């Protein structure tokens, strides 16, 4: 009986964690998979969303989810501008994909640092923490935090919408085409620069929305804490297979479950080690990712 309850606990806690990872990872999957930008400022965009939510809650006493109303369009706009004016020139001048990767990594590193500095100036260096729905909810003999459960539902909603958009709309089809082969997509009358910009902006918006969700249960948010999330997102995207939204979702859940499993049954000190172990396994046995196609 105890084993069963623990199993259920790991399954649900892991899924709650996985749902959180899926938002930031889907953001990166869109940016790297479609727009071909390895965005290492992803975690900072995530933290920016979280801090805006914090501000909405503490200075206006509103629900953190209200902030989605302007976080999502705001992040979309900012990321569109970033792509259009800072990254597009890099795409244009890159002779091959390797050069674009190095350039985009360095450029987005720079953006990440600038964003950290700006966030620190705007929000200060205090302990960011607020309480939202800090109540237990009982599911199958285990207690879970209500704010995490709500966060998971919101994440599922966003993921569902994105999935539909990706597979059921024309723009989604164009994105998938660009993800497979930008050059070929251009030949069939797809406006590749426009679709890339759209994907990058959408990815940024999803990431920032993820920040809003996580702010409802994270106990401390630090302007310079984004790199941890960037790392998790990168691992998930690589694990899932570049350019595949389904892969990112599945990999998020694998990562969330593995981390919870290790923390519960082995030792909380090995969470990151477990993530790395997964990463190395993928590198050694399936470098193209779970859903990825082998690159020519």
């Amino acid at each position, binding site marked *: 009986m105890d084993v069963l309850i623990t199993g259920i606990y790991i399954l649900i806690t892991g899924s709650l964690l996985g749902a959180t990872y899926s938002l930031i990872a889907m953001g990166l999957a869109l940016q790297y998979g479609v727009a071909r930008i*390895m965005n*290492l400022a992803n975690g900072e965009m995530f933290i920016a969303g979280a801090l805006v939510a914090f501000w909405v809650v503490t200075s206006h006493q509103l629900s953190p989810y209200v902030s989605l109303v302007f976080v999502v369009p705001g992040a979309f706009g900012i990321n569109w501008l970033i792509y259009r004016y*800072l990254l597009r*020139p*890099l795409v244009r001048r890159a002779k091959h994909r*390797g050069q674009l*990767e*190095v*350039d985009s*990594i*360095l*450029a987005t*590193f*720079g*953006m*990440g*640092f*600038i*964003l*950290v*500095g*700006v966030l*620190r*100036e705007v929000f200060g*260096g205090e302990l960011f923490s607020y309480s939202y729905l800090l109540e237990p909810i009982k599911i199958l003999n285990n207690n879970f935090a209500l704010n995490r459960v709500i966060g998971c539902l919101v994440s599922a909603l966003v993921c569902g919408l994105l999935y539909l958009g990706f597979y059921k709309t024309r723009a989604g089809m164009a994105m998938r085409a660009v993800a497979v082969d930008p050059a070929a997509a251009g030949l069939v009358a797809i406006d590749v620069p426009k679709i890339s910009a759209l994907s990058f902006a959408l990815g940024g918006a999803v990431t920032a929305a993820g920040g809003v969700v996580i702010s409802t249960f994270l106990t401390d948010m630090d302007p*310079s804490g984004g*790199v*941890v999330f*960037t*790392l998790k997102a*990168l*691992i998930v995207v*690589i694990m899932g297979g570049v350019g595949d939204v389904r892969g990112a979702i599945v990999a998020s859940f694998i990562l969330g479950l593995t981390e919870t499993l290790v923390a519960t049954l082995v*030792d909380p*000190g*090995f*969470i*990151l*080690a477990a*993530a*790395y172990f997964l*990463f*190395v396994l993928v*590198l*050694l046995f399936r*470098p193209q990712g779970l859903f990825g196609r082998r690159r020519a």
Partner: protein
Amino acid sequence: MTRNEGIGWMLAVAGFGAMAFLPLLEDADYLMGLALNITMFTVLATSWALFSGPTHYISLATAAFYGVGATVVAMGFEVLPFPVLLGLAGLAGGVLAALVGLATLRLSGVYFVIFTLGLAELIRQLVSWVQSNIVEVGSIQVFTDNSDNWIYWELLALAALVFLVGWLIERSRLGFAMRIIGNDEVVASHSGIHSAGSKVILFVISGFFAAAVGAVMVTKIINFDPDTFYLPIISFQVVIMALLGGVHRLWGPLLGVIPFTLLWEVIENRFQQPMEMFGVEIVSAGSLKVILLGVCFMLIVYYIPRGVVGRVETLARRLAPGGGASHG
């Protein structure tokens, strides 16, 4: 030896000689502090460039190596003499680099960047776990006989060594192989060059030096605890300094380290109090430094992709048409 090489050697010997002389001056503590920082980052950035220059792989593992070196000394300083530990630390850095390299260097550069991005944090957590559960030691006070002057000379010696190693590599089969790999990896593999192996060797060398620097620095900082040694910011600083200077010349990173360290120092002094305008705080030194780091990254990508060295060389070529190369 060509005339240029002769001048290079003379400059190097004169430079190191002058630097080695610094601690003997009276009341030069402040300059010594600056020189120590510059020397430390020169070793880190130059050894980083030995690997990243020819391979185009961006390594963010410097902090991990640096921390490993410090850990070795902290764990063993009561049992073993410091020179032995210094060697062991370098060895540990080299072994770590070999493991990481073998797992990731056969694959694309992105995997490598991601892997090294979290490496320092991973090792920090593992060392903390060992400290908490096995040896049960919080922070370790590393009191050694290593005086401030000696610490400086040791770093200077490491700097000399890294330049020597770099110079030797350029003249070796390895350097030749790397130049071919750097130009076209496919051609390299067709002409029988074992490219992954060559990359791993270079990575091991850079790991060795970064770990040795960490080993020396822990005797300066005295208090060892993983949270203040596996600092990711060190990795980023090294990358930016090396790229700013330029990685396709051995002495390139030096031209990044010096201006960057001095600029950092000026900011620290000028903006020690928050900058105010109309009674409103505009920007504080901490934020400004982070922003500056970001701006430098972007500057390099957009305007000086070949670093200060690249700019200087282009300028030299323009000033002396036809014969410009002789200045390089």
